[in-house]
């Protein structure tokens, strides 16, 4: 077996309405690329990216969920294993911002209590079509005590910063110890609920 090429594994989750750009945000971060064609995510997908923080190699396993209502029973079963959750809305779509409170309630219901949350207002390059003022995003983030960034996957604004900040926040809470095989072996799926093939 190959030696582990990382020290820690963090599991992150992207949630938010359909079409706000969750997959594009992730694709920008993992592959530094952007694609304008909209293909709705089917259920759940993930990408891997290894980053280095405070001298530690951290493997980020980022779960990308379908925003469509019909996939919710599948996607909510993945909340439990997440250490960090990014709530994404689209600054040109008022409804997607209104639904943030609904997504926050979903987190309360399905995720771990100590999960690190972050709010992203995506598509900030489209300022001419903006309907959600930056202040409203900042306000709701403040109310829930979470970080907030306006991002653009297309123009590559704040994407890396958001992921690294979330990873840092998780790292800060992580007790310093030698990683055991349970929390670094990505093939096991670890604490992700619903990943029954390997954990049972």
């Amino acid at each position, binding site marked *: 077996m190959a030696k582990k090429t990382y020290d820690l594994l963090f599991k992150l989750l992207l949630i938010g309405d359909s079409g706000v750009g969750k997959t594009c945000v992730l694709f920008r971060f993992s592959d530094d690329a952007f694609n304008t064609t909209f293909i709705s995510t*089917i259920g759940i997908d993930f990408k*891997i990216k290894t980053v280095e923080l405070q001298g530690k190699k951290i493997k980020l396993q980022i779960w990308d969920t379908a925003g469509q209502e019909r996939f919710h029973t599948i996607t909510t079963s993945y909340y439990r294993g997440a250490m960090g959750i990014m709530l994404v809305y689209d600054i040109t779509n008022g409804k997607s911002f209104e639904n943030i409170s609904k997504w926050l309630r979903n987190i309360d219901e399905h995720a771990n209590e100590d999960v690190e949350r972050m709010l992203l207002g995506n598509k900030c390059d489209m300022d001419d079509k903006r309907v959600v003022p930056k202040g409203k995003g900042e306000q709701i983030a403040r109310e829930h005590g979470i970080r907030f960034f306006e991002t653009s996957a297309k123009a590559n604004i704040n994407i890396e910063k958001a992921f690294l900040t979330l990873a840092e926040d998780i790292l800060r809470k992580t007790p310093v110890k030698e990683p055991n095989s349970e929390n670094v072996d990505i*093939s096991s799926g670890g604490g992700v609920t*619903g990943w029954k093939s390997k954990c049972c």
Partner: protein
Amino acid sequence: MEEPPLREEEEEEEEEEEGDEAGPEGALGKSPFQLTAEDVYDISYVMGRELMALGSDPRVTQLQFKIVRVLEMLETLVNEGSLTAEELRMERDNLRKEVEGLRRGASAASPEVSLGPDKMVVDLTDPNRPRFTLQELRDVLQERNKLKSQLLVVQEELQSYKSGLIPPREGPGRREKDVLVARTSNASSDKEEKTIIRKLFSFRSGKQT
């Protein structure tokens, strides 16, 4: 229940046609309920002809006026009767159509009636109709993600080998080959080694045979 009398009526209508073919005298043999204005005229013709044959007796003339009057009354009654019959026939046809429509509507609506507010109708001819269960999708996605994570592990491992980060594993097959190469090279340079090895080899082969 309704059908038999209707059929009877139709048969009677056919008889009426036959009566027409029988000539003016035939009208007198008809059922009074089947009588038409034409039949009354036929009867008038037949009776008028017979009255004429009786000659110009004033009593006959008196009787003729009365007969004409009676025939006129009959004509009115027959006309009114046939109008009423026609109206009833139309009403019957309308009712029949209405019943048929209701029956058809009821049979078409019956499956919808059994559907609750949360039910969905699936068009079986639609190639894109929903076919798989949520559990099936869940299973496929889990398998896909498991395979994807395994692929990533394998890719990473392959990269490590390629970049020389991990030395090639020392397998038993490889070790034997290395030793064999060492032996042959030593054998050519060192005579003593060669004999010892030969001894060893002959000893081994001797033991084997």
